[in-house]
């Protein structure tokens, strides 16, 4: 029971200026189910990638079976029998179920490999999910998302030359229905009782509390609690995730308190899967925050609102012009070959024309005025956008949205990986623009940013599950709503 399959000691990981892990100590022993919880950005995913060897730590020691492994990588993890069911599916959609099994099992080659692979995966599926109804020859892209998840889970538990010893399950039940989830959790207990180990990540706290032996809570890249499961209860888990015990009030600037939902209605939105109940509304001059765990429908709702602009009001009503500040600036935001000025003015080109042509002078003035207001640090706006630091690139994207004629600005977690100086500049500007009557719909994964919002909607499973006013905002309440189970 005491032998550690894998030990992490003082493991840190930085991506540029972002510290994803700030010194993690963790031991995983055979025969235990470890539950791992934490809010957005706590470092869970990075930790999983380090355990599977897909990401190398910046510093720290990884030991496997009491031996230090400075060269730890994917193949060593594989040899040790450490496998992961990643949250984003890692099956090849163009291959069959059997072929996908062979990709993780090298011994499955030579004559009759397809038959053996099919037998292996179907055998495991029968064991974990009796009555699954999946054929070994079915092409993965033809399967429903739930079934793909089942195949992926079963594949992680299959055995050829290497015995699976530690299986990491990252939100495995998110696309399974309740009865299949139940099958998986019971199987996990059986696997553990036979000497295996699992790391189980879930936003359904009850699953963690009921099915794990030990629970590790992460926060800000650190392990903040590590104890046997019976020592925790729902509320204790939530408070530990949120940090300071008790009702920790997020300090908010004065402006956010003077809520003013009296202006004109700009956006009204109801989630697609939400037939009744809470509706999101944004009025002129309001800053509205969207919170909850990442990937629970916040970005999707922003895109839906953006696309509904100019359309007829129905489930979504949008009045006036809308601009979107993308979160992933590399793929959705910047034009990498263009100058800073061109990147700023592209949203406003129709307003900058003289006759059929763009007035270079007016475009230059617009870009220049926003460079001053938002503080883009560059000697020349005609430089390429990539000459800017990440934070300043993001400022240029804000300048693009703010410089446009849009009355509503949608922001899709735009401050990811941005330095604090830039953040403060932008916060100041958002407050100022809101006072001028603009309204903001702001999806953020950072608790501190919610403090700038007049009201906050919390998303879970693509639905709005709670609405908080600024006065009601505490970190604990946000986490509570994000993790709450469907009763």
């Amino acid at each position: 029971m005491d032998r550690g399959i894998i030990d992490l000691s003082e493991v840190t990981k930085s991506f540029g200026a972002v510290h994803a892990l700030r010194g993690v100590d963790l031991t995983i022993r055979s025969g235990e189910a470890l539950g791992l919880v934490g809010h957005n950005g706590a470092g869970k995913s990075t930790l999983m990638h380090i355990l599977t060897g897909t990401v190398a730590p910046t510093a720290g020691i990884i030991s496997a079976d009491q031996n230090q492994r400075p060269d730890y990588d994917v193949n060593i993890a594989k040899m040790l029998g450490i496998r992961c069911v990643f949250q984003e599916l890692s099956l090849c959609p163009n291959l069959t179920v059997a072929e996908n099994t062979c990709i993780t099992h090298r011994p499955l080659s030579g004559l009759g490999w397809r038959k053996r692979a099919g037998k292996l995966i179907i055998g495991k599926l029968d064991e974990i999910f009796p009555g699954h109804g999946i054929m070994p020859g079915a092409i993965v892209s033809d399967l429903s998302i739930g079934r793909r998840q089942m195949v992926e889970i079963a594949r992680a538990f299959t055995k050829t030359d290497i015995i699976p010893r530690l299986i990491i399950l990252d939100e495995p039940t998110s696309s399974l229905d309740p009865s299949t989830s139940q099958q998986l959790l019971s199987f996990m207990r059986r696997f553990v009782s036979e000497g295996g180990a699992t790391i189980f990540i879930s936003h359904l706290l009850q699953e963690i509390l009921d099915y794990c032996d030990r629970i590790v809570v992460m926060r800000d890249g650190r392990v903040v609690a590590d104890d046997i499961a019976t020592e925790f209860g729902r509320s204790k888990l939530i408070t530990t995730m949120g940090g300071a015990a008790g009702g920790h009030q997020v300090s908010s600037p004065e402006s956010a308190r003077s809520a003013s939902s009296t202006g004109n209605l700009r956006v009204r939105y109801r989630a697609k899967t939400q037939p009744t109940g809470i509706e999101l509304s944004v009025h002129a001059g309001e800053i509205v925050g969207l919170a909850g765990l990442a990937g629970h429908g916040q970005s999707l709702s922003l895109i839906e609102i953006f696309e509904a602009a100019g359309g007829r009001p129905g489930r979504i009503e949008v009045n006036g012009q809308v601009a979107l500040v993308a979160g992933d600036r590399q793929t959705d935001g910047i034009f990498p070959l263009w100058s800073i000025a061109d990147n700023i003015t592209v949203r406003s080109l129709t307003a900058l024309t003289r006759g059929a042509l763009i007035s270079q002078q007016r475009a230059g003035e617009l870009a220049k005025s926003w460079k001053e207001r938002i503080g883009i640090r560059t000697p020349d706006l005609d430089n390429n956008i990539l000459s800017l630091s990440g934070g300043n690139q993001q400022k240029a994207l804000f300048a693009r949205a703010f410089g446009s004629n849009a009355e509503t600005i949608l922001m899709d977690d735009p401050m990811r990986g941005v330095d604090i100086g830039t953040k403060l500049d932008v916060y100041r500007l958002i407050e100022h623009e809101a006072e001028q009557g603009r309204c903001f719909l702001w999806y953020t994964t950072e608790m501190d940013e919610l403090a700038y919002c007049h009201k906050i909607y919390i998303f879970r499973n693509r639905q709005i599950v709670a609405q908080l006013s600024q006065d009601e905002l505490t970190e604990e309440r946000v986490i509570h709503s994000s993790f709450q189970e469907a009763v």
Partner: protein
Amino acid sequence: MNAVVKSGPSKLWTDQNRRFDPRRLFRSALPGLSLLIVLAAIYDFNPRAISYFGFNLMLNLAVPVALATAAQLCIIAVSDLDLSIGAYVGFIACVTTTWLPTTPLLGTAAILASIVAYGALGALVHWRQLPSIVVTLGMSFVWLGLALFVRPQPGGLSPVWLSTFMGLHVPYVPFPIVAAVVLAIVLHLVLMNTAFGAVLRGAGGNATAVGRSGWSLLRIKATAYAMAGVLGSLAGLSLVGVSSSADANMANGYTLLSIAGAILGGAEFIGGRISPIGAVMGALTLQLATVALNFFQLPEVFPGFRIPPEWQVGAQGIILIVILAIRALINRGEA
């Protein structure tokens, strides 16, 4: 949770187990059907063409085209595209006619070195994360330049053994058909029926997943490109065997023809979805389509009417568009 929950477990089972899906059957039969339609058209215009000698004549150039298509398919399997295969086939043809008959050692070494270069290209594409289209487009000019260097003027000699092999008379079944069938079977076995082929296609479908399973994507890409190099070399050799002389520009059309053949055969541009048997059929279809147009006539109305030969290339394009449109319709119905 998502819609799966809402519908309940009983509805979970509806998406699959449709082993007999008429749409899917129709889609996979599409390459064969188009080949049959073209053959039927030829028979209608000129029944005598459907004979042992007729096929030998009509499918004269089908073997090199099918081999070039097979080469393209190896690249498409890893979700890349090769715009240099035509120039490469031309280069190999020039090497074959210039060096193989007189200095076989030099010729063989040159061909082997080109195959290694092809593999290295695949490694480069992965290592520097370059778009394959750009790299192979650049390489097409390199191959063309090398071909002109080896053989500045058209001409040369075909090695005797090569012409003999390509002129082989198999009893009952014309040689090009035998060659095409063998190629289709070998290609299908290697790409679709081996574990190695599954990994190769997996890299085209979800490279991250294959990398996370501990495979070297560099080696996968290099292998796929080297396989294309081998098949491209065979295409060059067979082209010389048929035409018995070479010219640097002789196979330039093969680049687009090979892509068209692979797509016609059921492959998708991205995502590692390929069909080797379909691709060989696609290559044959495109080859026969030009022949069918030669025979096309409107005897009652205009007895002397013939479709001008310069329209033939356009006809290949129209066939491609029609087939793809049909496939898109099937796919839409399915979604």
